[in-house]
């Protein structure tokens, strides 16, 4: 079989092929490894390809075919490089962890493996998940497979690019302020940020502990459902994990009930800051739902305009605390010094890149004596207001639909005079992250070969309704799945 035959495959399709023994795990892994070899010098989605171990594992599975196949048996999965994978590098895109090999698997990786998945490799990302383009990766940026001159987004840019280019059938990313949804939008694929606490964070390298969530990046909504079923559910090793069982697709309402869902359209997300074509594509998708009898309701999220500032204070403050562990003592980079303090300074100065240092400084400043009330306490109160906005809006509707990003994927290396302008890339994904709500991005159209991401936001632990609407909308839109040719310039 050839890679192009998998263009429209779901995880279920791979599963059936394997069940019927029309392909072996070894043949399947070889096809993807070949695609990676074909694409990687142009895309650079992977920091580590697990070739030898993946093939050995595939060979072992091929030689020991069980009667009944676990749900992800033989399926290659790419993992963002801030998620711990035993025996493999976990660099977080940073010099600080360049040679760090994790001694354990994150819970999400354990669960994927228990379901029979094979880890294909670790994907590129902005350093310590700080960024929205992968340009902050110490190891060079990833290129958008749909237009190699452009960014795939970030920080899970490598994961999104690998799925878009079909170097992997699916991947895991992490989302703090939009780092699964934004790259999914930029690469024309599906990205799900589960409700905070739905998926365990044990083994996911911490950026901002009250915001981080691991989530699937897939080619179809159906696959996001399959992966969520595997990775979600309580874990005693993560005290912030909600005490619920794993998500089940039985939580998805019937189509008849989905049609009765009221969709809220927040006016603040359709302001002049959104590129005109993006706004038009979202309205077209809303028009399709309306044409099918879905009720659209205009709602307001009045504190949207303050969410970005609140987020950057909270996230930087938490990051400054989380990244204090990188001191050269127990793991990671160590640069020797005259004494212990000197070693800390030398290690951290050399080990972190500019954006990471910037956010540590910002976070430390926000938490410091004399500034705590002015910045951190204030931002936590704004967070309450943002949450209440969503609570009120979700009394008038069941789900919200917005653009995922205000603009199209920008060119790599594009200079911006205003540093803060780059932070506004996440302006539509940040509020729902602050509120801990589930949200998903799916492609709703192309303009000049570039995708437009549509975001659906749901109530807490209401992934069922969210995924149900996303499944149906995906069918209504009937867009082609990406399969870029990987030439210079536009590839789709």
């Amino acid at each position, binding site marked *: 079989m050839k890679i192009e035959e998998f263009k429209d495959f779901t995880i279920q399709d791979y599963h059936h092929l394997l069940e019927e023994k029309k392909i072996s795990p070894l043949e399947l892994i070889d096809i993807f490894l070949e695609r990676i070899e074909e694409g990687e010098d142009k895309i650079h989605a992977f920091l580590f390809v697990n070739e030898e171990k993946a093939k050995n594992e595939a060979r072992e599975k091929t030689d020991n075919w069980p009667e009944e196949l676990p749900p992800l048996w033989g399926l290659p999965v790419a993992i963002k490089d801030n998620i711990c994978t035993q025996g493999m590098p976990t660099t977080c895109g940073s010099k600080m962890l360049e040679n*760090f090999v994790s001694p354990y698997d994150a819970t999400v990786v354990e669960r994927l493996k228990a379901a029979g998945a094979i880890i294909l490799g670790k994907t590129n990302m902005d350093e310590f998940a700080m960024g929205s383009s992968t340009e902050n990766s110490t190891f060079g940026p990833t290129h958008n497979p749909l237009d190699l001159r452009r960014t795939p987004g970030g920080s899970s840019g490598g994961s999104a690019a690998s799925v878009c280019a079909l170097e992997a059938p699916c991947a895991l990313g992490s989302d703090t302020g939009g780092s699964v949804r934004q790259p999914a939008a930029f690469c024309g694929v599906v990205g799900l940020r589960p409700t*905070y606490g739905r998926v365990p964070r044990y083994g996911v390298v911490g950026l901002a502990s009250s915001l981080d969530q691991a989530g699937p990046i897939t080619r179809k909504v159906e696959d996001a459902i399959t992966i969520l079923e595997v990775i979600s559910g309580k874990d005693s090793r993560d005290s912030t994990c909600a005490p619920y069982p794993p998500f089940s697709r039985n939580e998805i309402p019937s189509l008849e009930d989905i049609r009765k869902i009221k969709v809220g359209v927040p006016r603040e997300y359709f302001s002049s800051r959104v590129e005109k074509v993006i706004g038009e594509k979202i309205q077209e998708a809303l028009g399709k739902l309306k044409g099918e009898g879905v009720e659209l309701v205009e709602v307001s999220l009045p504190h949207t305009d303050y969410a970005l500032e609140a987020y950057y204070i909270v996230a930087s403050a938490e990051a400054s605390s989380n990244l204090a562990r990188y001191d050269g003592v127990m793991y990671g980079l160590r640069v020797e010094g005259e004494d212990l303090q000197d070693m800390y300074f030398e290690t951290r100065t050399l080990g972190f890149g500019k954006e990471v240092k910037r956010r540590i400084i910002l976070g430390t400043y926000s938490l410091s004596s004399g500034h705590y009330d002015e910045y951190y306490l204030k931002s936590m109160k704004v967070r309450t207001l943002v949450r209440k906005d969503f609570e009120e809006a979700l009394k008038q509707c069941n789900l919200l639909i917005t653009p995922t990003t205000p603009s199209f994927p920008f060119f790599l290396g594009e200079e911006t005079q205003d540093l803060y302008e780059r932070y506004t890339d996440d302006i539509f994904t940040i509020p729902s992250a602050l509120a801990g709500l589930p949200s998903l991005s799916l492609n709703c159209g192309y303009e000049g070969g570039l995708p437009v991401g549509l975001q659906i936001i749901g109530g807490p632990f209401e992934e069922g309704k969210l995924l149900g609407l996303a499944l149906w909308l995906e069918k209504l839109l009937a867009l082609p799945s990406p399969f870029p040719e990987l030439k210079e310039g536009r590839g789709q």
Partner: protein
Amino acid sequence: MKEVVYLSELEKIARLSKLGFSAEELQSFLRDINDIVAHFEKLNQLDLQDVSSTSHLGGGEPPFFSDEPQAWEGSEEVLKGAPWVAGGYFIVPRIVDKEEKENEDRRI
């Protein structure tokens, strides 16, 4: 742009963060931080007096473990990645400060 963060404060924050900067880098970071912090002033438009703060999103009681020892065999794996280990300990440079050391050396 109004300067909210001054150089002396940035130097102090850098020390707290255990990050070293050249004079040129400090000036560049000073501009960046002031640029970002200027945007944070927007939050002053809101009346937050009677608003509670949200520090985390989990509800209910934090989970507890029973206070019983558990066997853990992972020490070797964890220590493998350490820069310098001896006798099951992480070895680091001298912690005693220079002045104390000089006094100690004088006493010997």
